């Protein structure tokens, strides 16, 4: 059995005194892709934020045994920088690998340096958002509904990529509403009203 890369142990996160996640335990192994589903407010985004270290849990802990790449639901980009300038800022010495990742995601080549983030369509911005999570060759990928705004072709390509990342030995966690794609992942974790 592959090594556990992401270990969520009895994680509890409260918001306004109410537990959003209550003693949640999940393990994701190298070479495994899981989908996290649940109703609005079930704590899907909260789980990913806690796994990325952006939220301090009320109790329990998260341990990652590889670098973590996090793609937030809302594109965390600077509106007045181009994709190339984002790669320069994030990728530092490896802007070429960033350009390759953008290419793999179907980001229009002419837009890499030619358009500012605010001039990109929603789906293209989202590709940049995903690419920034992949730049550090992260072993643990946390993707919060990363396909929003994708056209159908790009959406299918994205799930192909999830399979590739899994085959590369990464641990992939995708928050999704779309049960139709549950066959493309190894496990589905459903969060309840209070998981």
């Amino acid at each position, binding site marked *: 059995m592959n090594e556990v890369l992401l270990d969520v142990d009895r994680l509890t996160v409260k918001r306004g005194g109410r537990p959003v996640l209550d003693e949640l335990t999940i393990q994701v192994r190298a070479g495994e892709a899981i989908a996290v589903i649940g109703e609005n407010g079930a704590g899907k985004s909260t789980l990913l934020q806690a796994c990325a*270290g952006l939220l301090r849990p009320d109790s329990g802990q*998260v*341990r*990652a045994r590889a670098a*973590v790449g996090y793609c937030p639901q809302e594109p*965390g980009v*600077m509106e007045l920088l181009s994709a190339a300038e984002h790669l*320069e800022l994030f990728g530092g010495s490896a802007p070429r690998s960033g350009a390759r990742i953008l290419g793999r995601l179907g980001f229009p080549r002419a837009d890499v340096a030619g358009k500012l983030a605010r001039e990109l369509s929603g789906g293209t911005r989202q590709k940049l958002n995903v690419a920034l999570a992949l730049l*550090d060759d992260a072993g643990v990928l946390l993707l919060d509904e990363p396909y929003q705004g994708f056209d159908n072709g790009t959406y299918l390509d994205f799930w192909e990529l999830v399979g590739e990342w899994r085959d590369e030995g990464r641990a992939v966690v995708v928050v999704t509403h779309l049960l139709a794609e549950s066959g493309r992942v190894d496990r589905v974790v459903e969060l309840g009203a209070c998981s």
Partner: protein
Amino acid sequence: MSAKHVLAVAVAHRRELLRRRFAVGMLIALPLAFYASAASAEGSFVLITGGLGVAWALTGTGLFVGLASRRLAPRLVLSGYRPNEILAGQMLLLAGFALPMFAVFTSILLVAEQPAHSLDLVVAVLLTALIAVPLGLLLGSLCRGELEGTLSLIGVLGVQMSLPVSAAGAEALPFYGPMVLLESAYGTQIDTAVAVPHSIVAIGLLTAAAFAAWNRRVRVADVTQSA
């Protein structure tokens, strides 16, 4: 602290700032407009309005730089940046922006107002610029959004400009030192010995507060540490 990271952040914000031509133009034009509208006022008010104009421009710029990087900063930390490197990069950018601002406002005031003590005016505008940089970044770290930040900026600078240096509590405000020097520059008989030390303390406290608030704002727990 990685100089490469600090520089990369400064370059990114410089690019973004240069593309906000209208906003930057307004940040410079508004204090100049305040100054022009105060031209007929009596006493030292004209000089104070012009001298503290740099504070409006730089505090406002710092505020918007801080707010603009809110979403991105945690991701930068996840990819290896330290929060202090991000803030230091923003300070570096603002310091670069402060130099021409200092030059423009000082030149205008020296020529137009011909103050009694020119050196006091030059030092006052320089200290104003140096205090405004960490103040803007502190507001950018503390305030929830642009509206709250702008109202806080108007509140701090509005009270500062309307409160005479002789009033009770004036020493508690960040630009007290420059205000004293501007009074002296106008020709008011006033003890200026406290102005520079007060400003140095203000710069130190505001810088420490800006770093503390920023670190709290973009805090990312290292989940890989305990592996």
